[in-house]
């Protein structure tokens, strides 16, 4: 057994009205990757913020190399050797890689001038230890996101960090970048560093995790050797109940009635001549790797991005879409992958967000909004979609991810959308709320709404759809019947290893 480097014992942290952590214990060994998993609100980020000095625990002790320590702020934690690699990276885009790595600790020449040459050389040394190929003298904003993450890691390494905390490090990376990251993580582990690895993507733990600890509702549930548990067991521990029915039974049945026909959509360098049909009662999945053009396809159909070519027919009628307003008027709704950035006005009320795309409906000819009608509309959808909120006048920012997604959905239902495009509908949403969203999607399809569902989670695609379009580098490379395919086959298509673009593989009922 390797030696323990970090241990927390019986940590409790309370916030007004909620116990975020309740006597949680956790330990980390030298040279291991310890995965920390749990639903949103399980207490993972609170624990990380305590370890990195952002919060102070109300009770409990942190031991670093066997010594009790107290971190009053993040600087103290960093000095003690704990570095956190945030989801949102903390680099200064206009400074060079070397300048970022040594920010605040620049090597000096005589006279107090910065020794740029030495700084650059030192940065190169650290980067080569990670075996990543990055020029230390180029500005960080010129690097792709994955390389910036490497710079963050190099920076932490230059701080002599012994404990690395990685919070959802793969969330924005492509498959090959994730591979690269895992290699670096293994190299760090071999150097004797301890890594706390937080991720929603349980599937990827098998590539890196040595042990896995589960938190639930602020409490410690279990710690296991990763080899000795299955993903199913981990999920069960996370949600505290068996997830036999991970996806709701499908009640909608595809018909042969075409709702939407997309013909020859192209956008230079992004989308190449994509055509497909969507049938009533059907849930059509779009799969592909990051960068394959899934979101771009959705945005092109919705008019959010310009397209160079292509026609769209709704119920057999050609519609001209050059802006989201055109698409919405025709009856298409889009639920973007980033709700907070593109789906909701977070500072505005639940009522206002639900009615935002259809204020005509609740206002008179002078454009005066009826508060009474608006309230009724909001109450209707809060009940129908089971949006958990103390009041319809709640600021949307204060709702949970699942309820925010339901709010975006309510907006489109109130707009009477006939086609809904869900882009990563359950990203960042609790397992329990996911089920509710999936159920809603199915019942919408049953009620005749055409559903397109983009997802990076293949189980979600396989569990929810009738048919799957697979994109690869902006091209439609495969149309698969969900019941006849599996993860491996989809991945083969997504990786560009297979193709069946005989687009005539229309639905065979």
């Amino acid at each position, binding site marked *: 057994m390797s030696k323990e480097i970090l241990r927390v014992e019986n940590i409790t942290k309370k916030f*007004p*009205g*909620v116990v975020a952590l309740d006597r949680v214990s956790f330990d980390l060994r030298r040279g291991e990757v310890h995965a920390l998993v749990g639903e949103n609100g399980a207490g993972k980020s609170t624990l990380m913020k305590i370890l990195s000095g952002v919060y102070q625990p109300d009770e409990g002790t942190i031991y670093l190399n066997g010594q009790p320590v107290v971190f009053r702020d993040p600087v103290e934690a960093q000095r003690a050797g704990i570095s956190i690699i945030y989801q949102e990276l903390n680099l200064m885009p206009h400074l060079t890689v070397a300048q970022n790595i040594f920010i605040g600790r620049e090597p000096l020449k005589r006279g107090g001038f910065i020794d740029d040459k030495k700084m650059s050389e030192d940065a190169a040394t650290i980067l080569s230890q990670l075996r990543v190929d990055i020029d230390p003298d180029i500005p960080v904003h010129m690097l792709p996101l994955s390389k910036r993450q490497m710079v963050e890691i190099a920076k932490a390494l230059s701080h002599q960090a012994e404990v690395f905390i990685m919070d959802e490090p793969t969330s924005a990376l492509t498959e090959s970048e994730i591979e690269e990251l895992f290699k670096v993580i293994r190299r760090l582990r071999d150097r004797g560093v301890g890594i706390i690895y937080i991720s929603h993507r349980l599937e990827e733990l098998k590539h890196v995790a040595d042990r896995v600890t589960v938190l639930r509702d602020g409490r410690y549930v279990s710690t296991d050797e990763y080899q000795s548990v299955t993903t199913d067991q981990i999920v069960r521990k996370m949600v505290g109940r068996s997830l036999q029915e991970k996806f709701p039974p499908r009640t909608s049945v595809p018909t042969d009635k075409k709702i939407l026909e997309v013909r020859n959509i192209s956008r230079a360098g992004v989308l190449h001549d994509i055509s497909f049909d969507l049938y009533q009662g059907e849930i059509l999945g779009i799969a592909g790797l990051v960068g394959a053009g899934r979101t771009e396809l959705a945005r092109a159909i*919705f008019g*959010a991005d310009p397209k160079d070519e292509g026609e769209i027919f709704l119920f057999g009628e050609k519609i001209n879409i050059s*802006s*989201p*307003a055109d*698409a*919405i*008027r025709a009856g298409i709704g*889009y639920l*973007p992958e980033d709700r907070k*950035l*593109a*789906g*909701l*006005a*977070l*500072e*505005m009320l639940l009522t*206002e967000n639900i009615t*935002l*795309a259809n*204020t*005509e409906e609740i*206002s008179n000819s*002078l*454009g*005066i*909004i009826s*508060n009474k009608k608006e309230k009724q509309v909001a109450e209707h959808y809060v009940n129908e979609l089971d949006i*958990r*909120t*103390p*009041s319809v006048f*709640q*600021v949307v920012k*204060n*709702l949970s991810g699942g309820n925010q997604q339901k709010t975006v959905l309510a*907006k489109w239902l109130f707009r009477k959308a006939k086609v809904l495009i869900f882009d990563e509908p359950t990203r960042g949403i609790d397992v329990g709320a996911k089920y509710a969203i999936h159920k809603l999607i199915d019942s919408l399809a049953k009620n005749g709404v055409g559903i397109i569902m983009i997802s990076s989670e293949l189980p979600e695609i396989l569990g929810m759809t009738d048919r799957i379009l697979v994109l690869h580098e902006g091209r439609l490379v495969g149309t698969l019947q969900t019941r006849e395919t599996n993860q491996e086959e989809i991945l083969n298509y997504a990786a560009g290893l297979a193709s069946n673009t005989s687009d005539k593989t229309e639905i065979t009922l």
Partner: protein
Amino acid sequence: MAETVSQMEKVRNMMQRFIAVAALIALFVVFSLVTDRFFTIQNILTIALQTSTLAFMGIGVTYVIITGGIDLSIGSVVALSGVVAGLAVRAGMPVLIGFLLALLAGIACGAANGLMVTKLNLPPFIATLGMMQIARGIALYVTGARAVAGLPEEFGILGNGALFRTTTTLPNGRVVTKFPGIPYPVIIMVIVAIIFDFVLKHTRLGRFTYAVGSNQEAARLSGLNVNKTKIIAYIISGGLAGLTGIVTMSRIVTAQPNAGVAYELDAIATAVIGGTSLMGGAGTISGTMIGAFIIGILRNGLNMQGVSYFIQQVIIGLVIIAAVAVDQLRKREG
């Protein structure tokens, strides 16, 4: 737990409004106690009159700031539209037509600002900084940098007249004012404030204004016409700057191409003291009115106390900083 969060937020928002109103009342009480002639009908009407132009500009810029923009051209537009009115009337046009042309000049400047921000995709700071120079330059050029004087008496009615002014003639023939009347600019201020408050709170345009400032991309993806909403906000700001120009020049019965320098900063201060966020998405007309009156009462009261104009500037600067600091502290607690 969500319930307590929203309750706390509600209480905090009320607190902020309460602090602003309390500050307004406190100022009023203090000045009433320390200055004899402060709490008189005459003086209260004077304060309202002095505040009216500040309120017009503040209301206009509040719309722009809620969309996430800024309007630095206000002071120059005040001068340009005033000059347009003056020149038109001196050229023989009826006063009413002159005023309408002035209003149109303001609206045109606002529309130009809006088009630059949306169609040319310029940062609002830059677009309106340019307009600030352009409008001022035109105002100075067309007048040869000289005041447009010699205007007919009717030019001054809007700025100097009052409703319900009652006078009696004493037996000795002297005319005594029993009630000074409500100055026309004050009446216009009340109407403008009510209309623009209603529009912002209860109409689709108002809703769109908040939505664009709160999350522009979400607004666009909800089918809102983001550009149109922004252009209208700049037109409102330009139009109300035009109105300010008319009232200001009417009061002195002279069109001054040098008038209105740095008024935009007063207008922005008014909005900010009233709780409008420079980040966009938040702000109210009632808040801006409170902000305008805080500045108006401070100026009036300090004047009566004989406080130097320069010291007044210092005090108003402190008030702006304090108002926003309170707002920031409030947010940090949350």
